[in-house]
Protein backbone atom coordinates (compact mmCIF):
# COMPACT_ATOMS: atom_id res chain seq x y z
CA UNK A 1 0.00 0.00 0.00
CA UNK A 2 2.24 2.77 -1.23
CA UNK A 3 0.27 5.82 -2.30
CA UNK A 4 2.44 8.03 -4.47
CA UNK A 5 -0.05 10.91 -4.32
CA UNK A 6 0.41 11.08 -0.54
CA UNK A 7 4.19 10.81 -0.72
CA UNK A 8 4.35 13.50 -3.37
CA UNK A 9 2.17 15.98 -1.52
CA UNK A 10 3.89 15.42 1.83
CA UNK A 11 7.28 16.08 0.23
CA UNK A 12 5.93 19.11 -1.65
CA UNK A 13 4.61 20.60 1.58
CA UNK A 14 7.89 20.17 3.45
CA UNK A 15 9.90 21.55 0.57
CA UNK A 16 7.65 24.58 0.20
CA UNK A 17 7.88 25.36 3.89
CA UNK A 18 11.64 24.87 3.89
CA UNK A 19 12.17 27.27 0.99
CA UNK A 20 9.83 29.79 2.60
CA UNK A 21 11.61 29.80 5.92
CA UNK A 22 14.80 31.65 5.10
CA UNK A 23 16.03 31.75 8.68
CA UNK A 24 15.91 27.97 8.97
CA UNK A 25 17.89 27.62 5.76
CA UNK A 26 20.53 30.07 6.92
CA UNK A 27 20.88 28.57 10.39
CA UNK A 28 21.22 25.02 9.09
CA UNK A 29 23.98 26.15 6.77
CA UNK A 30 25.70 28.24 9.42
CA UNK A 31 26.31 25.25 11.68
CA UNK A 32 28.53 23.29 9.25
CA UNK A 33 30.43 26.48 8.42
CA UNK A 34 31.16 27.13 12.09
CA UNK A 35 32.30 23.59 12.74
CA UNK A 36 34.36 23.28 9.61
CA UNK A 37 36.23 26.59 9.76
CA UNK A 38 36.23 27.53 13.45
CA UNK A 39 36.71 24.12 15.03
CA UNK A 40 38.40 22.45 12.06
CA UNK A 41 40.56 25.47 11.31
CA UNK A 42 41.69 25.80 14.94
CA UNK A 43 42.16 22.10 15.61
CA UNK A 44 44.24 21.53 12.48
CA UNK A 45 46.96 23.63 14.21
CA UNK A 46 46.99 21.09 17.02
CA UNK A 47 46.34 17.80 15.24
CA UNK A 48 49.11 16.55 12.96
CA UNK A 49 48.04 15.83 9.40
CA UNK A 50 47.83 12.31 7.97
CA UNK A 51 49.67 11.22 4.83
CA UNK A 52 47.74 13.38 2.40
CA UNK A 53 44.92 14.63 4.55
CA UNK A 54 44.93 17.60 6.96
CA UNK A 55 42.60 17.71 9.97
CA UNK A 56 40.23 20.22 8.37
CA UNK A 57 39.97 17.91 5.36
CA UNK A 58 39.58 14.90 7.62
CA UNK A 59 36.46 16.31 9.28
CA UNK A 60 34.85 17.34 5.98
CA UNK A 61 32.97 14.02 5.55
CA UNK A 62 31.99 14.29 9.21
CA UNK A 63 30.63 17.79 8.67
CA UNK A 64 28.59 16.51 5.71
CA UNK A 65 27.34 13.72 7.98
CA UNK A 66 26.45 16.27 10.65
CA UNK A 67 24.51 18.41 8.18
CA UNK A 68 22.57 15.35 7.10
CA UNK A 69 22.02 14.15 10.67
CA UNK A 70 20.65 17.45 11.93
CA UNK A 71 18.44 18.21 8.98
CA UNK A 72 17.06 14.67 8.69
CA UNK A 73 16.25 14.40 12.36
CA UNK A 74 14.86 17.93 12.43
CA UNK A 75 12.68 17.23 9.43
CA UNK A 76 11.28 14.07 11.02
CA UNK A 77 10.88 15.59 14.45
CA UNK A 78 8.53 18.11 12.81
CA UNK A 79 6.00 15.29 13.14
CA UNK A 80 5.85 16.21 16.82
CA UNK A 81 5.02 19.81 15.82
CA UNK A 82 2.36 18.51 13.45
CA UNK A 83 0.87 16.48 16.28
CA UNK A 84 0.98 19.42 18.67
CA UNK A 85 -0.56 21.90 16.23
CA UNK A 86 -3.16 19.49 14.93
CA UNK A 87 -2.10 19.15 11.31
CA UNK A 88 -1.24 15.49 11.83
CA UNK A 89 -4.96 14.75 12.23
CA UNK A 90 -5.61 16.00 8.71
CA UNK A 91 -3.14 13.39 7.48
CA UNK A 92 -4.28 10.60 9.79
CA UNK A 93 -7.95 10.72 8.78
CA UNK A 94 -7.12 10.79 5.08
CA UNK A 95 -7.58 7.60 3.06
CA UNK A 96 -3.86 6.85 2.86
CA UNK A 97 -1.95 4.14 4.66
CA UNK A 98 0.25 5.02 7.63
CA UNK A 99 3.14 3.46 5.76
CA UNK A 100 2.76 5.95 2.90
CA UNK A 101 2.78 8.78 5.42
CA UNK A 102 6.03 7.46 6.89
CA UNK A 103 7.53 7.02 3.42
CA UNK A 104 6.47 10.56 2.53
CA UNK A 105 8.06 11.98 5.67
CA UNK A 106 11.26 9.98 5.18
CA UNK A 107 11.44 11.08 1.55
CA UNK A 108 10.97 14.71 2.63
CA UNK A 109 13.89 14.31 5.02
CA UNK A 110 15.93 12.77 2.24
CA UNK A 111 15.20 15.54 -0.26
CA UNK A 112 15.85 18.39 2.20
CA UNK A 113 18.99 16.86 3.72
CA UNK A 114 20.55 15.94 0.41
CA UNK A 115 19.83 19.45 -0.81
CA UNK A 116 21.70 20.88 2.18
CA UNK A 117 24.52 18.35 1.92
CA UNK A 118 25.05 19.42 -1.70
CA UNK A 119 25.41 23.04 -0.61
CA UNK A 120 27.97 22.09 2.05
CA UNK A 121 29.73 19.89 -0.48
CA UNK A 122 30.39 23.02 -2.57
CA UNK A 123 32.88 24.10 0.13
CA UNK A 124 35.41 21.40 -0.75
CA UNK A 125 37.70 23.60 -2.92
CA UNK A 126 38.09 26.06 -0.02
CA UNK A 127 39.78 23.50 2.22
CA UNK A 128 42.11 22.26 -0.49
CA UNK A 129 40.28 19.05 -1.39
CA UNK A 130 40.19 17.74 -4.93
CA UNK A 131 37.19 15.68 -5.99
CA UNK A 132 36.52 14.28 -9.46
CA UNK A 133 32.92 14.16 -10.84
CA UNK A 134 32.58 10.49 -9.95
CA UNK A 135 33.47 11.21 -6.31
CA UNK A 136 30.95 14.08 -6.25
CA UNK A 137 28.19 11.82 -7.55
CA UNK A 138 29.23 9.21 -5.00
CA UNK A 139 28.99 11.70 -2.14
CA UNK A 140 25.53 12.82 -3.28
CA UNK A 141 24.25 9.24 -3.57
CA UNK A 142 25.57 8.25 -0.16
CA UNK A 143 24.09 11.46 1.29
CA UNK A 144 20.69 10.53 -0.12
CA UNK A 145 20.71 7.01 1.32
CA UNK A 146 22.06 8.19 4.67
CA UNK A 147 19.44 10.98 4.81
CA UNK A 148 16.66 8.50 4.18
CA UNK A 149 17.92 6.14 6.90
CA UNK A 150 18.31 8.94 9.46
CA UNK A 151 14.96 10.52 8.57
CA UNK A 152 13.28 7.14 9.12
CA UNK A 153 15.16 6.87 12.43
CA UNK A 154 13.85 10.34 13.33
CA UNK A 155 10.26 9.31 12.60
CA UNK A 156 10.74 6.33 14.87
CA UNK A 157 11.93 8.69 17.62
CA UNK A 158 9.11 11.14 16.96
CA UNK A 159 6.50 8.42 17.29
CA UNK A 160 7.44 8.02 20.95
CA UNK A 161 6.95 11.67 21.83
CA UNK A 162 3.81 13.77 21.97
CA UNK A 163 4.97 17.27 22.76
CA UNK A 164 7.78 19.47 21.60
CA UNK A 165 9.31 19.69 25.08
CA UNK A 166 10.88 16.37 24.17
CA UNK A 167 12.77 18.06 21.35
CA UNK A 168 15.69 19.12 23.53
CA UNK A 169 15.85 15.65 25.09
CA UNK A 170 16.22 14.13 21.65
CA UNK A 171 18.80 16.73 20.64
CA UNK A 172 20.96 16.44 23.76
CA UNK A 173 20.74 12.75 24.51
CA UNK A 174 20.47 11.22 21.07
CA UNK A 175 21.56 13.55 18.29
CA UNK A 176 24.66 15.14 19.84
CA UNK A 177 26.13 11.81 21.09
CA UNK A 178 25.40 10.31 17.69
CA UNK A 179 27.39 13.07 16.08
CA UNK A 180 30.39 12.84 18.42
CA UNK A 181 30.56 9.06 18.29
CA UNK A 182 30.31 8.81 14.52
CA UNK A 183 33.98 9.27 13.72
CA UNK A 184 33.14 12.74 12.41
CA UNK A 185 35.68 14.57 14.59
CA UNK A 186 38.15 11.76 15.37
CA UNK A 187 38.84 8.36 13.82
CA UNK A 188 36.90 5.51 15.40
CA UNK A 189 40.04 3.39 15.43
CA UNK A 190 41.69 5.76 17.95
CA UNK A 191 38.80 5.58 20.44
CA UNK A 192 39.01 3.56 23.70
CA UNK A 193 37.44 0.09 23.41
CA UNK A 194 34.14 0.96 25.11
CA UNK A 195 33.48 3.98 22.91
CA UNK A 196 34.55 1.98 19.88
CA UNK A 197 31.73 -0.47 20.57
CA UNK A 198 29.21 2.35 20.96
CA UNK A 199 30.46 3.91 17.72
CA UNK A 200 29.95 0.66 15.88
CA UNK A 201 26.30 0.64 17.00
CA UNK A 202 25.78 4.16 15.69
CA UNK A 203 24.15 4.30 12.23
CA UNK A 204 25.82 7.62 11.45
CA UNK A 205 29.30 6.05 11.84
CA UNK A 206 28.80 4.04 8.64
CA UNK A 207 27.49 7.04 6.74
CA UNK A 208 30.45 9.20 7.71
CA UNK A 209 32.79 6.31 6.97
CA UNK A 210 31.28 5.80 3.51
CA UNK A 211 31.85 9.47 2.80
CA UNK A 212 35.47 9.17 4.01
CA UNK A 213 35.95 6.19 1.71
CA UNK A 214 34.75 8.26 -1.23
CA UNK A 215 36.42 11.59 -0.39
CA UNK A 216 39.93 10.19 0.37
CA UNK A 217 40.06 6.66 -1.02
CA UNK A 218 43.87 6.38 -1.04
CA UNK A 219 44.50 7.51 2.51
CA UNK A 220 45.93 4.84 4.82
CA UNK A 221 46.93 5.06 8.48
CA UNK A 222 45.33 7.16 11.22
CA UNK A 223 43.04 9.33 9.15
CA UNK A 224 41.78 6.68 6.76
CA UNK A 225 38.27 5.24 6.78
CA UNK A 226 37.59 2.57 9.40
CA UNK A 227 35.53 0.07 7.40
CA UNK A 228 35.25 -0.91 3.76
CA UNK A 229 32.86 0.99 1.52
CA UNK A 230 30.98 -2.25 0.98
CA UNK A 231 30.40 -2.70 4.72
CA UNK A 232 29.32 0.94 5.07
CA UNK A 233 26.80 0.79 2.23
CA UNK A 234 25.39 -2.57 3.31
CA UNK A 235 24.81 -1.27 6.82
CA UNK A 236 23.17 2.01 5.72
CA UNK A 237 20.94 0.35 3.14
CA UNK A 238 19.86 -2.35 5.58
CA UNK A 239 19.17 0.23 8.28
CA UNK A 240 17.07 2.40 5.91
CA UNK A 241 14.79 -0.55 5.26
CA UNK A 242 14.69 -1.62 8.91
CA UNK A 243 14.03 1.90 10.23
CA UNK A 244 11.34 2.71 7.71
CA UNK A 245 9.45 -0.49 8.55
CA UNK A 246 9.84 0.05 12.28
CA UNK A 247 8.65 3.65 11.90
CA UNK A 248 5.71 2.40 9.83
CA UNK A 249 4.80 -0.09 12.57
CA UNK A 250 5.19 2.51 15.31
CA UNK A 251 2.91 4.82 13.37
CA UNK A 252 0.21 2.30 12.63
CA UNK A 253 -0.94 1.57 16.14
CA UNK A 254 -4.45 2.54 17.01
CA UNK A 255 -5.66 2.58 20.60
Amino acid at each position, binding site marked *: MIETNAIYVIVAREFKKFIR*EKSRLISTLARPLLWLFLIGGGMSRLVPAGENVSYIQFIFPGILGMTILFSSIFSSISIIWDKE*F*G*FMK*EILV*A*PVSRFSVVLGKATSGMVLSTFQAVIVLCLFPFIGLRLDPLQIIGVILVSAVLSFALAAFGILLASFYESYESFSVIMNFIVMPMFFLSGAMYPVKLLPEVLKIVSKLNPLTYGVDALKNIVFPYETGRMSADFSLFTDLSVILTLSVVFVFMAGKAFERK*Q
Partner: protein
Amino acid sequence: MSMIQVENLVKKFGTITAVDDVSFEVDEGAIFGFLGPNGAGKTTTINILCTLLAPTSGKAYINSYDCDRESSKVRNAIGIVFQDSSLDKDLTARENLMFHAYLYRVEKAERKQRIDDALRFVDLTDRADDLVKKFSGGMKRRLEVARGLIHRPKVLFLDEPTLGLDPQSRSNLWEFITTLPKLHKVTIFMTTHYMEEAEVCDKIAIIDRGKIIASGTPAELKKIVGGDVIYLRTTDNKKAMGDVKRLFDMEVSEKDDEIFISSMKGEACIPALIREIGERVLSVRMQRPTLNDVFLKLTGKEIREQNGTAQDDVKAMVRSYRRRHDRD
Protein backbone atom coordinates in the same frame (compact mmCIF):
# COMPACT_ATOMS: atom_id res chain seq x y z
CA MET B 1 -31.31 3.97 4.88
CA SER B 2 -29.21 5.41 7.67
CA MET B 3 -25.98 7.11 6.77
CA ILE B 4 -24.49 6.65 10.23
CA GLN B 5 -25.30 3.69 12.41
CA VAL B 6 -23.91 3.17 15.89
CA GLU B 7 -24.70 0.07 17.90
CA ASN B 8 -23.85 -0.44 21.57
CA LEU B 9 -20.60 1.43 21.25
CA VAL B 10 -18.24 1.27 24.23
CA LYS B 11 -14.83 2.88 24.60
CA LYS B 12 -12.76 2.46 27.72
CA PHE B 13 -9.49 4.13 28.57
CA GLY B 14 -8.12 1.95 31.31
CA THR B 15 -10.74 1.99 34.04
CA ILE B 16 -12.51 5.05 32.65
CA THR B 17 -15.48 4.43 30.39
CA ALA B 18 -15.61 7.42 28.05
CA VAL B 19 -18.40 6.06 25.84
CA ASP B 20 -20.84 3.73 27.54
CA ASP B 21 -23.15 1.62 25.37
CA VAL B 22 -24.16 4.31 22.91
CA SER B 23 -26.52 3.59 20.01
CA PHE B 24 -28.06 5.94 17.44
CA GLU B 25 -28.77 6.34 13.76
CA VAL B 26 -28.57 9.33 11.46
CA ASP B 27 -30.54 9.60 8.22
CA GLU B 28 -28.95 10.68 4.98
CA GLY B 29 -29.03 14.46 4.47
CA ALA B 30 -29.91 15.22 8.09
CA ILE B 31 -28.20 17.57 10.51
CA PHE B 32 -27.56 15.53 13.60
CA GLY B 33 -26.57 17.20 16.84
CA PHE B 34 -24.58 15.39 19.49
CA LEU B 35 -24.94 17.44 22.63
CA GLY B 36 -23.37 17.25 25.99
CA PRO B 37 -21.03 18.96 28.42
CA ASN B 38 -17.27 18.89 27.96
CA GLY B 39 -15.90 15.44 28.63
CA ALA B 40 -19.23 13.68 28.04
CA GLY B 41 -17.77 11.45 25.32
CA LYS B 42 -18.59 13.44 22.19
CA THR B 43 -15.10 13.71 20.77
CA THR B 44 -14.28 10.11 21.64
CA THR B 45 -17.36 9.02 19.67
CA ILE B 46 -16.30 11.17 16.72
CA ASN B 47 -12.79 9.75 16.85
CA ILE B 48 -14.21 6.23 16.65
CA LEU B 49 -16.50 7.17 13.77
CA CYS B 50 -13.65 8.75 11.82
CA THR B 51 -11.39 5.72 12.42
CA LEU B 52 -8.86 7.38 14.72
CA LEU B 53 -9.79 5.17 17.66
CA ALA B 54 -10.80 1.53 17.83
CA PRO B 55 -13.91 0.84 19.93
CA THR B 56 -13.60 -1.40 22.98
CA SER B 57 -16.82 -3.10 21.89
CA GLY B 58 -19.86 -2.35 19.74
CA LYS B 59 -20.12 -1.33 16.11
CA ALA B 60 -20.13 1.86 14.10
CA TYR B 61 -20.98 2.12 10.41
CA ILE B 62 -20.80 5.00 7.99
CA ASN B 63 -22.45 4.56 4.62
CA SER B 64 -22.66 0.86 5.62
CA TYR B 65 -18.88 0.57 6.02
CA ASP B 66 -17.48 -0.68 9.30
CA CYS B 67 -15.49 2.12 10.93
CA ASP B 68 -13.10 -0.30 12.58
CA ARG B 69 -12.45 -2.76 9.75
CA GLU B 70 -13.04 -0.79 6.56
CA SER B 71 -11.30 2.37 7.68
CA SER B 72 -10.04 3.35 4.25
CA LYS B 73 -13.56 3.29 2.74
CA VAL B 74 -14.91 5.18 5.72
CA ARG B 75 -12.18 7.82 5.41
CA ASN B 76 -13.07 8.40 1.79
CA ALA B 77 -16.67 8.99 2.76
CA ILE B 78 -16.10 11.54 5.51
CA GLY B 79 -14.87 15.09 5.98
CA ILE B 80 -13.95 16.40 9.40
CA VAL B 81 -13.63 19.75 11.08
CA PHE B 82 -11.85 19.07 14.34
CA GLN B 83 -12.30 20.91 17.59
CA ASP B 84 -8.76 22.26 17.37
CA SER B 85 -7.62 23.64 14.05
CA SER B 86 -5.83 21.13 11.85
CA LEU B 87 -4.70 23.59 9.20
CA ASP B 88 -1.06 24.17 8.38
CA LYS B 89 -0.63 27.78 9.41
CA ASP B 90 2.58 28.17 7.41
CA LEU B 91 0.81 27.39 4.17
CA THR B 92 -1.68 29.56 2.31
CA ALA B 93 -5.41 28.80 2.20
CA ARG B 94 -5.08 27.51 -1.34
CA GLU B 95 -2.09 25.33 -0.46
CA ASN B 96 -3.99 23.78 2.43
CA LEU B 97 -6.83 22.89 0.07
CA MET B 98 -4.38 21.64 -2.56
CA PHE B 99 -2.74 19.35 0.00
CA HIS B 100 -6.14 17.93 0.83
CA ALA B 101 -7.09 17.46 -2.82
CA TYR B 102 -3.93 15.45 -3.48
CA LEU B 103 -4.34 13.39 -0.35
CA TYR B 104 -7.89 12.40 -1.37
CA ARG B 105 -6.94 11.80 -5.03
CA VAL B 106 -9.14 14.49 -6.54
CA GLU B 107 -8.66 14.23 -10.31
CA LYS B 108 -6.13 16.65 -11.73
CA ALA B 109 -8.69 18.10 -14.14
CA GLU B 110 -11.03 18.95 -11.28
CA ARG B 111 -8.59 20.06 -8.61
CA LYS B 112 -8.32 23.74 -9.44
CA GLN B 113 -12.03 24.15 -10.13
CA ARG B 114 -13.08 22.51 -6.87
CA ILE B 115 -10.62 24.57 -4.86
CA ASP B 116 -11.79 27.82 -6.48
CA ASP B 117 -15.41 26.87 -5.86
CA ALA B 118 -14.70 25.98 -2.25
CA LEU B 119 -12.88 29.25 -1.63
CA ARG B 120 -15.74 31.21 -3.17
CA PHE B 121 -18.27 29.24 -1.17
CA VAL B 122 -16.64 30.22 2.13
CA ASP B 123 -15.97 33.74 0.93
CA LEU B 124 -12.18 33.52 1.07
CA THR B 125 -11.35 33.99 -2.61
CA ASP B 126 -9.48 37.24 -2.06
CA ARG B 127 -7.47 35.75 0.80
CA ALA B 128 -6.65 32.51 -1.02
CA ASP B 129 -2.93 33.19 -1.24
CA ASP B 130 -2.42 34.53 2.26
CA LEU B 131 -0.78 32.41 4.93
CA VAL B 132 -3.35 30.83 7.25
CA LYS B 133 -1.57 32.22 10.32
CA LYS B 134 -2.85 35.64 9.32
CA PHE B 135 -6.49 34.46 9.40
CA SER B 136 -9.05 35.15 12.13
CA GLY B 137 -10.68 32.29 14.04
CA GLY B 138 -13.84 32.47 11.95
CA MET B 139 -11.93 32.45 8.67
CA LYS B 140 -9.95 29.41 9.76
CA ARG B 141 -13.12 27.53 10.63
CA ARG B 142 -14.68 28.40 7.29
CA LEU B 143 -11.56 27.28 5.50
CA GLU B 144 -11.64 23.99 7.39
CA VAL B 145 -15.25 23.41 6.42
CA ALA B 146 -14.34 24.15 2.80
CA ARG B 147 -11.44 21.72 3.03
CA GLY B 148 -13.65 19.03 4.53
CA LEU B 149 -15.92 19.27 1.49
CA ILE B 150 -13.26 19.24 -1.27
CA HIS B 151 -13.45 15.47 -1.78
CA ARG B 152 -17.28 15.47 -1.74
CA PRO B 153 -17.78 13.39 1.41
CA LYS B 154 -21.06 11.72 2.36
CA VAL B 155 -20.77 12.82 5.97
CA LEU B 156 -19.25 15.98 7.39
CA PHE B 157 -18.22 15.91 11.05
CA LEU B 158 -18.13 19.20 12.89
CA ASP B 159 -16.66 18.92 16.37
CA GLU B 160 -17.57 22.05 18.34
CA PRO B 161 -17.35 24.16 15.17
CA THR B 162 -18.08 27.43 16.91
CA LEU B 163 -15.80 27.00 19.89
CA GLY B 164 -13.78 30.13 20.54
CA LEU B 165 -15.57 32.24 17.94
CA ASP B 166 -17.21 35.58 18.64
CA PRO B 167 -21.04 35.72 18.54
CA GLN B 168 -21.08 37.36 15.11
CA SER B 169 -18.89 34.68 13.49
CA ARG B 170 -20.85 32.01 15.29
CA SER B 171 -24.16 33.00 13.83
CA ASN B 172 -22.59 33.46 10.39
CA LEU B 173 -21.09 30.01 10.58
CA TRP B 174 -24.42 28.46 11.56
CA GLU B 175 -26.21 30.13 8.72
CA PHE B 176 -23.58 28.69 6.45
CA ILE B 177 -23.64 25.19 7.95
CA THR B 178 -27.41 24.87 7.53
CA THR B 179 -27.06 25.36 3.77
CA LEU B 180 -24.62 22.46 3.44
CA PRO B 181 -26.94 19.42 3.28
CA LYS B 182 -28.84 20.82 0.31
CA LEU B 183 -25.91 22.38 -1.53
CA HIS B 184 -23.43 19.56 -1.03
CA LYS B 185 -25.65 16.54 -0.39
CA VAL B 186 -23.92 15.77 2.87
CA THR B 187 -25.13 14.46 6.17
CA ILE B 188 -23.92 16.59 9.05
CA PHE B 189 -22.82 15.22 12.38
CA MET B 190 -22.03 17.99 14.80
CA THR B 191 -21.21 18.25 18.45
CA THR B 192 -21.66 21.28 20.60
CA HIS B 193 -22.10 22.23 24.19
CA TYR B 194 -23.92 25.42 23.25
CA MET B 195 -27.48 24.14 23.54
CA GLU B 196 -29.06 27.07 21.73
CA GLU B 197 -26.99 26.26 18.64
CA ALA B 198 -28.51 22.83 18.37
CA GLU B 199 -31.91 24.30 17.46
CA VAL B 200 -30.94 24.00 13.78
CA CYS B 201 -30.60 20.22 14.03
CA ASP B 202 -33.11 17.78 12.58
CA LYS B 203 -32.33 15.33 15.32
CA ILE B 204 -30.45 15.55 18.58
CA ALA B 205 -28.94 13.08 20.99
CA ILE B 206 -27.95 14.30 24.41
CA ILE B 207 -25.00 12.56 25.99
CA ASP B 208 -23.81 12.82 29.56
CA ARG B 209 -21.06 10.79 31.22
CA GLY B 210 -20.76 8.58 28.17
CA LYS B 211 -24.45 7.63 27.96
CA ILE B 212 -27.20 8.96 25.71
CA ILE B 213 -29.86 10.26 28.04
CA ALA B 214 -32.36 11.53 25.47
CA SER B 215 -32.81 11.83 21.73
CA GLY B 216 -35.34 13.22 19.27
CA THR B 217 -36.14 16.39 17.35
CA PRO B 218 -35.62 19.68 19.21
CA ALA B 219 -39.42 20.00 19.59
CA GLU B 220 -39.76 16.49 20.99
CA LEU B 221 -36.99 17.09 23.48
CA LYS B 222 -38.53 20.31 24.69
CA LYS B 223 -41.68 18.41 25.56
CA ILE B 224 -39.63 16.59 28.18
CA VAL B 225 -39.38 19.85 30.09
CA GLY B 226 -43.14 20.12 29.91
CA GLY B 227 -43.58 23.57 28.48
CA ASP B 228 -42.61 26.88 30.01
CA VAL B 229 -40.42 27.28 33.05
CA ILE B 230 -41.19 29.81 35.76
CA TYR B 231 -38.34 30.95 37.96
CA LEU B 232 -39.05 32.49 41.37
CA ARG B 233 -36.79 34.12 43.86
CA THR B 234 -38.38 34.12 47.30
CA THR B 235 -37.52 35.11 50.84
CA ASP B 236 -37.49 31.46 51.83
CA ASN B 237 -37.03 29.04 48.96
CA LYS B 238 -37.41 25.89 51.06
CA LYS B 239 -40.77 27.00 52.39
CA ALA B 240 -41.93 28.24 48.99
CA MET B 241 -41.06 24.91 47.41
CA GLY B 242 -43.10 23.09 49.99
CA ASP B 243 -46.06 25.39 49.47
CA VAL B 244 -46.03 25.07 45.72
CA LYS B 245 -45.83 21.30 45.96
CA ARG B 246 -48.69 21.21 48.42
CA LEU B 247 -51.01 23.78 46.81
CA PHE B 248 -50.45 23.13 43.11
CA ASP B 249 -49.23 19.54 43.07
CA MET B 250 -46.41 20.61 40.72
CA GLU B 251 -42.84 19.49 40.70
CA VAL B 252 -40.44 22.16 42.00
CA SER B 253 -36.66 22.22 41.94
CA GLU B 254 -34.09 24.61 43.22
CA LYS B 255 -31.09 25.98 41.41
CA ASP B 256 -28.72 28.66 42.70
CA ASP B 257 -31.04 30.98 44.64
CA GLU B 258 -34.10 30.38 42.48
CA ILE B 259 -36.79 27.76 42.49
CA PHE B 260 -38.28 26.71 39.18
CA ILE B 261 -41.52 25.15 38.07
CA SER B 262 -42.45 23.60 34.73
CA SER B 263 -45.87 24.38 33.35
CA MET B 264 -47.58 23.88 30.02
CA LYS B 265 -49.30 27.27 30.42
CA GLY B 266 -46.88 29.58 32.13
CA GLU B 267 -48.87 32.77 31.54
CA ALA B 268 -51.85 31.40 33.44
CA CYS B 269 -49.75 29.86 36.17
CA ILE B 270 -47.96 33.01 37.30
CA PRO B 271 -51.06 34.88 38.64
CA ALA B 272 -52.11 31.79 40.60
CA LEU B 273 -48.66 31.47 42.12
CA ILE B 274 -48.57 35.12 43.09
CA ARG B 275 -51.99 34.88 44.71
CA GLU B 276 -50.82 32.08 46.99
CA ILE B 277 -47.27 32.97 47.92
CA GLY B 278 -47.08 36.48 46.52
CA GLU B 279 -45.86 38.30 49.63
CA ARG B 280 -42.71 36.12 49.78
CA VAL B 281 -41.81 36.42 46.09
CA LEU B 282 -38.90 38.74 45.32
CA SER B 283 -38.84 38.24 41.55
CA VAL B 284 -40.50 36.21 38.83
CA ARG B 285 -39.37 35.36 35.33
CA MET B 286 -40.57 32.94 32.73
CA GLN B 287 -38.71 31.13 30.02
CA ARG B 288 -39.91 29.32 26.96
CA PRO B 289 -38.26 25.92 26.96
CA THR B 290 -34.77 25.72 25.50
CA LEU B 291 -32.57 22.71 25.04
CA ASN B 292 -30.59 23.92 28.01
CA ASP B 293 -33.67 23.36 30.16
CA VAL B 294 -34.00 19.89 28.73
CA PHE B 295 -30.49 19.14 29.85
CA LEU B 296 -31.10 20.72 33.22
CA LYS B 297 -34.24 18.65 33.67
CA LEU B 298 -32.52 15.42 32.69
CA THR B 299 -29.35 15.83 34.70
CA GLY B 300 -30.13 18.44 37.32
CA LYS B 301 -27.27 20.62 36.19
CA GLU B 302 -26.56 23.26 33.58
CA ILE B 303 -24.68 22.06 30.54
CA ARG B 304 -22.08 24.80 30.72
CA GLU B 305 -21.52 24.50 34.41
CA GLN B 306 -18.01 23.21 34.01
CA ASN B 307 -15.69 24.52 36.63
CA GLY B 308 -14.23 21.59 38.46
CA THR B 309 -17.01 19.18 37.56
CA ALA B 310 -16.51 15.46 37.43
CA GLN B 311 -16.56 15.58 33.64
CA ASP B 312 -13.52 17.81 33.51
CA ASP B 313 -11.68 15.49 35.82
CA VAL B 314 -12.57 12.56 33.61
CA LYS B 315 -11.44 14.45 30.55
CA ALA B 316 -8.12 15.31 32.16
CA MET B 317 -7.69 11.72 33.24
CA VAL B 318 -8.46 10.41 29.78
CA ARG B 319 -5.98 12.82 28.27
CA SER B 320 -3.19 11.93 30.62
CA TYR B 321 -4.00 8.25 30.27
CA ARG B 322 -3.78 8.49 26.51
CA ARG B 323 -0.53 10.37 26.73
CA ARG B 324 0.99 7.72 28.95
CA HIS B 325 -0.35 4.69 27.14
CA ASP B 326 -0.07 5.92 23.61
CA ARG B 327 2.59 3.33 22.93
CA ASP B 328 0.60 0.28 24.01
